């Protein structure tokens, strides 16, 4: 992605948005929700693109991350920011339980992860003493005030989730450009050929799974403290899987920033534009948009936006 463009976008995000919408809790709230989706979308795309694994169960990591963080903060009084990081770690740890699924291919892997998501959700419902059961956890501690900026408020939350998403995307980009990224890319077609030149392919895939889980868990943890409430149906809702996938595809999951662009455009357009027009049926438009995108620009929005340069960059996105 073009350096200058990136920097301009970051400046706009860190300075422009707060100046424009800082006062408008509603719009800022929508943007935060969109970025939450974006964070998961980046993590999903990273796994799909580098690991070559399509997951239908990222809600599992989202839920585990959010519960870990919320429980640590409420029951053990861990500082919220620390708890959030540990939420990511928790999700990463939970992904280790999924390593056996790495042997599975295509839809088999995708559904195995979905099964894990269901299992974690049911556990969260049944482990009442820790998770509060179906009732969930109300009034989860919010982010604290730091140097006069109240991170418990909309603007603070925005800055946190924005930073998470940006760092995730940059990490993704860095890996993709590294020899690790090359090796992962190489593995898609001929895994054996990479193994005989010394690439520990399974380890690399596992690493991608764990990283993807960490990012997703981190985002989930953020969301728990931002909404300050959790219950199993919400934390493990299939929405946390489905929307990010839609967003990633929509924005172009073969690019680094596609998922972010996709999440922002889908969510904001849906909520700000379509919802007022058709208060009830607006999800239908979302469906139509998705289909149209697949049929007319399968690469997603990002490639569509920059058709010309794409020719040269093609090899860069695998």
């Amino acid at each position, binding site marked *: 992605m073009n350096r200058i463009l990136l920097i301009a976008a970051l400046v706009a995000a860190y300075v422009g948005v707060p100046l424009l919408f800082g006062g408008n809790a509603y719009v800022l709230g929508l943007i935060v929700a969109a970025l939450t989706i974006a964070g998961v979308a980046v993590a999903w795309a990273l796994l799909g693109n580098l690991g070559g694994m399509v997951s239908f169960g990222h809600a599992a990591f989202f839920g585990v991350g959010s519960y870990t963080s919320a429980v640590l903060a409420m029951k053990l009084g861990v500082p919220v920011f620390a708890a959030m990081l540990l939420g990511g770690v928790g999700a990463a740890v939970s992904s280790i339980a999924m390593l056996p699924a790495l042997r599975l291919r295509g839809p088999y892997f995708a559904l195995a992860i979905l099964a894990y998501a269901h299992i974690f959700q049911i556990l969260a419902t049944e482990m009442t003493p820790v998770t509060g059961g179906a009732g969930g956890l109300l009034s989860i501690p919010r982010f604290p005030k730091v140097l006069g900026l109240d991170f418990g408020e909309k603007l603070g939350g925005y800055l946190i989730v924005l930073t998470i998403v940006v760092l995730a995307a940059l990490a993704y980009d860095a890996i993709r450009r590294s020899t690790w990224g090359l090796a992962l890319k*190489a593995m898609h077609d001929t895994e054996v050929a990479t193994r005989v030149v010394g690439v520990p392919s399974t380890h690399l895939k596992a690493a991608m799974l764990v990283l993807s889980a960490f990012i997703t868990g981190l985002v989930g943890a953020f969301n728990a403290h931002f909404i300050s409430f959790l219950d199993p149906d919400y934390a493990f809702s299939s929405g946390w899987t489905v929307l990010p996938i839609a967003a990633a595809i929509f924005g172009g999951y073969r690019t680094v920033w596609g998922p972010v662009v996709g999440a922002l455009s889908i969510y904001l357009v849906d909520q700000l534009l379509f919802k007022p027009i058709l208060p009830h049926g607006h999800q239908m438009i979302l469906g139509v948009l998705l289909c149209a995108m697949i049929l007319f620009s399968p690469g997603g929005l990002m490639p569509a936006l920059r058709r010309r340069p794409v020719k040269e960059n093609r090899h860069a996105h695998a």
Partner: protein
Amino acid sequence: MLTLEGVQVNFGGVQALKSASFSVAEGESIGLVGPNGAGKTTLFNVISGVVRPTAGRLDFRGTSLLKLPEWKRARLGIGRSFQIPRPFGHCTVRENLLVAQRFGAGKKDPRRIDEILDILNLRDKADRDATTELALTEHKALEVGKALATEPSLLLLDEVLAGLETSSKRAFMERLAAVRDRYRLAMVIIEHDIATIAALCPRVLVLNFGQIIADGSPDAVFRDPDVIRSYTGETTLAEAS
């Protein structure tokens, strides 16, 4: 450096290798010949770890390879090429070598990469897409290059010369010899063309029905009646003698 003892491989009921035993000394070059389906490639797969033997011993410089996955063997110094070239998807030639060097040799050494590109005469293709923009010779060369980039001490080459027309074949042969002497490698080459073998390798192994039926100097081996009977390519034999 490499010792096989009674190595045996079964695919379901079929016995692809019945107790193969031989050893390769440091810096030695061996030609591996035999009719199709004799088990040559299977032998390479066993050594490089792609296939697990059902029985037998397999040691490399005193350590047993049996429990090690492919990538660990590669890091120990066993490099191999595939009969059908397997370039890394949508990577450039240089990227192919970078991956092999980074993971196989555990270092980043652009100078050595360039050296390999020069020896294999791939310099001008270095930034082409390896899957879509190479000719057969270059594909074969890249196979060797990837193995070399892992800085092996034993190089297993699976028909890297097959399918090349005589002129480029001779050139390629010279390159291989250069590589071998430059890096002081032990080499095992699967090759049908006896002349090539004879030119490159002082020692020849003949494999038939999963068994080593002859082992010795080219002219000794190619006069062996069993070999002649087993080996289909009489014409090439004639050429050799």
